[in-house]
């Protein structure tokens, strides 16, 4: 059957840096973003860090004729910051909030309050069922000593699980967003190898944008130079990933990024650069050349899961240490509480008010210790659950690998003998 003429899907992704009262020139930049989207007429625009609903509603009004279908994912205290604008009808939406997302006492970082998540919209595009994911992972504040690495690992795992479990019936899958990870970082490799999603930057023949596809660059005067250390010029942490199916083959025809300052405009759209991908869709029975996730070596998947498990286990150790500290805090509060009580019975050399003050200090130690204990216990549960799920997948891959070797064919595409062992895939 001859391949039909491919249709093109234009996808846009941008971390808008929309922290009202904190990020610079927020309102003006949203005006610019609105103009850009209205002019470019992408099929789908995926935005992150749209923290204020007012900004989303502003864009929605502005783009009501070009992008009549929208969804704003609400999560956490002022999140999730994820918004989708689409030319095509959004049939359904689902949100998966990440179980780990920083700490509430890290107020200056604010990730915990953002309720970071992955949003899924199911869009009807040219009669095809497109599953479009938009997400934003925990920021990396210090690459040398990344205390949030276990959190980001858990988020990567939950992201890949969510994509894997919800994209079974999809004709095509697109994931856009700010992963806060470099292309070869563990979380990224884990995500790509286990979902079969392909990086548009590496797949495209035509690229026009920053050097090495960087999306957070020094040339952008909004970006903080300390965020880029030790990378002088820039880093690539925003992505558009894609995957076809047996019904549809996908190819990235071109990818472009903004390059910092915008022509005729006084400042860039955001501290991040925007990505625009042109994806060609081929309705074809014969789509073997652009294989699905089966094309990746099972052993590679196993290695990356093992690496990820090590990170999660380390995170578990760290969190258990934190929980122990919280316990000490509680006990010290309890012990100190005995002090004013003892003093109350002894001949008073301390005024009542000092006792009261001491009592208040003890109570606050006790309460804060208790709440931290609660928080860290919850985190420990999440890390253990993630480890368990990774172990299950690892065992499953081990069985597949054994099956592969026994059958004699090391092929990693959907060969029939593998089918009983891959519960995700349905034979068409």
């Amino acid at each position: 059957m001859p391949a039909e003429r491919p249709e093109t899907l234009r996808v846009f992704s941008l971390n808008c840096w929309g922290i009202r009262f904190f990020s610079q020139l927020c309102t003006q930049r949203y005006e610019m973003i609105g103009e850009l989207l209205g002019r470019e007429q992408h099929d789908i625009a995926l935005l992150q860090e749209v923290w204020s609903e007012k900004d989303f509603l502003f864009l929605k009004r502005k783009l009501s004729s070009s992008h009549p279908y929208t969804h704003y994912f609400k999560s956490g205290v002022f999140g999730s910051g994820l918004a989708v604008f689409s030319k095509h009808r959004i049939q359904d939406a689902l949100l998966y909030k990440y179980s780990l997302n920083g700490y509430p006492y890290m107020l200056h970082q604010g990730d915990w309050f953002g309720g970071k998540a992955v949003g899924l919209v199911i869009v009807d595009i040219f009669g095809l069922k497109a599953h479009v994911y938009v997400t934003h992972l925990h920021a990396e504040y210090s690459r040398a000593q990344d205390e949030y690495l276990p959190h980001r690992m858990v988020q990567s795992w939950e992201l890949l699980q969510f994509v894997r479990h919800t994209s079974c019936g999809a004709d095509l899958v697109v994931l856009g967003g700010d992963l806060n990870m470099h292309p070869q970082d563990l979380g990224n490799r884990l995500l790509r190898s286990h979902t079969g999603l392909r990086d548009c930057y590496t797949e495209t023949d035509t690229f026009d944008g920053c050097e090495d596809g960087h999306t957070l660059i020094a040339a952008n005067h909004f970006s903080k130079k300390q965020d880029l250390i030790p990378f002088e010029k820039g880093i690539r942490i925003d992505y558009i990933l894609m995957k076809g199916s047996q019904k549809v083959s996908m190819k990235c025809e071109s990818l472009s990024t903004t390059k910092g300052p915008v022509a005729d405009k006084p400042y860039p759209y955001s501290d991040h650069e925007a990505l625009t991908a042109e994806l060609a869709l081929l309705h074809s029975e014969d789509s073997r050349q652009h294989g699905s996730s089966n094309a990746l070596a099972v052993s590679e998947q196993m290695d990356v899961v093992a690496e990820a498990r090590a990170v999660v286990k380390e995170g578990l150790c760290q969190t258990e240490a934190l929980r122990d500290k919280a316990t000490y805090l509680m006990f010290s509060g309890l012990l100190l509480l005995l002090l004013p009580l003892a003093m109350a019975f002894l001949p008073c050399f301390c005024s009542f008010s000092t006792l009261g003050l001491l009592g208040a200090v003890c109570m606050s130690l006790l309460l804060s210790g208790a709440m931290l204990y609660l928080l860290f216990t919850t985190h420990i549960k999440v890390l253990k659950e993630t480890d368990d799920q990774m172990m299950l997948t690892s065992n499953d891959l081990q069985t597949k690998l054994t099956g592969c070797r026994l059958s004699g064919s090391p092929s990693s595409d959907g060969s029939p003998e593998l089918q009983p062992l891959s519960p995700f895939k349905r034979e068409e």
Partner: protein
Amino acid sequence: MTTSAPIRFRVFSLNCWGIRYLSKNCKERFVLIGDLLSQEQLDVALLQEVWCEKDFLFLKKKLNSIYPYSHYFKSGFIGSGLAVFSRHRIHDAFLYRYSLNGYPYMAQHGDWFGGKAVGKVLLNISGLTVHIFVTHLHAEYCREKDSYLPHRVVQAWELQQFIRHTSAGADVVILGGDLNMHPDDLGTRLLRNYTGLQDSFSETAHFDGCEEGHTHISENPFTNTDGLVPFGGGVRIDYILFKGSGEVDVSCESLSTTKGPVPGHPFPYSDHEALTAKFLFTPTTKGNGYSERQSGCVSDKLPELVNTVNEARTEVKVGLHCAERMRHTAARTGIMGLVLLVLELAIATIPLFALGTEQPFPKASFYLLGALCFAVLLSTLMLYVFYSMEVKALQGTEDQMRLALSSFQEQLKESPKVLSSDHLRKPLDSKDSIHF
């Protein structure tokens, strides 16, 4: 390589009431449960309220030879309490924690600390992809004035969303658990209608158990009978639901429940009754499958589904209104606390400026009031954060419901046209099915 022979599949579900130090005879009952699971020839056992990991590990050790595969879903502070024991290999597991689950200050209810969720495990039974879900929804403490109804509706919504979106590739879907909802409650109807899952109690060929399939009965010495009196001595709040697909027809051959006291044992397994369902998986030939009938059923049910989702949306809106009001109260109280603190600090500076005063500074009252203001400020701040999250979750759910409703409306509009494009059926038969 799917088998063509029918497969029998036995599923067990029980809310174990495993609250250590609080529920009665906890340890002994877990021994009984372990014995029961060993004796019964089950394929999968779905347990809820296994709050303590030690109890799970006890069961795991005890059942290792018969159920070599298991998964314990961890979530929240003491939860999720969900455990799966399986005769068949568990290929994968995934957890979805509900966005809303009570309030942290309702310590006597404890739901918030439980991290309630829906857990999913993937099994492969003779080439058939079987997706099994286990869950436990927020408890109902007072049916007349159910302050947790919006939370449970959101949980039911998220449960059906999770099932629908993650079981596209499934041959068989089974859901077991304690839904804490009666069969005709809004959440149950929403779940069944939107997912197409069928209730094993209604569909079973053969039933043996409590009257009307009740799973929480007054005959059980552990239950609080007062709450059950208006319902004739029992309620049906635990379920095993199922669904087939185009590849496989699923029917429930039999369903049984325990009936309170267990012969030969001093007490029942739990305050809930256990459910055991026996299913028959019949692989079908293509074109004859369940999905054809199912899509017809779903489309017939579309108007009813629209009503159910609208009803659910109303409940969510009520909850939203309530949450916004609570948040406003928290904000107001917090500001009052702040104002009081500022006022106090201002008053405290007066002695500094007042000349010739000989009154001693009222340190005690100063510190006391200051501490009170500070405590009020801090607690209202945390409540404000909590209620904001509740508001967001409710708004998010309402948005999803609105999206679903507009999708339904599109489907309803399109349905007459699709009749003619349905190539699998002759035009004369078009009256029987509306195929999307």
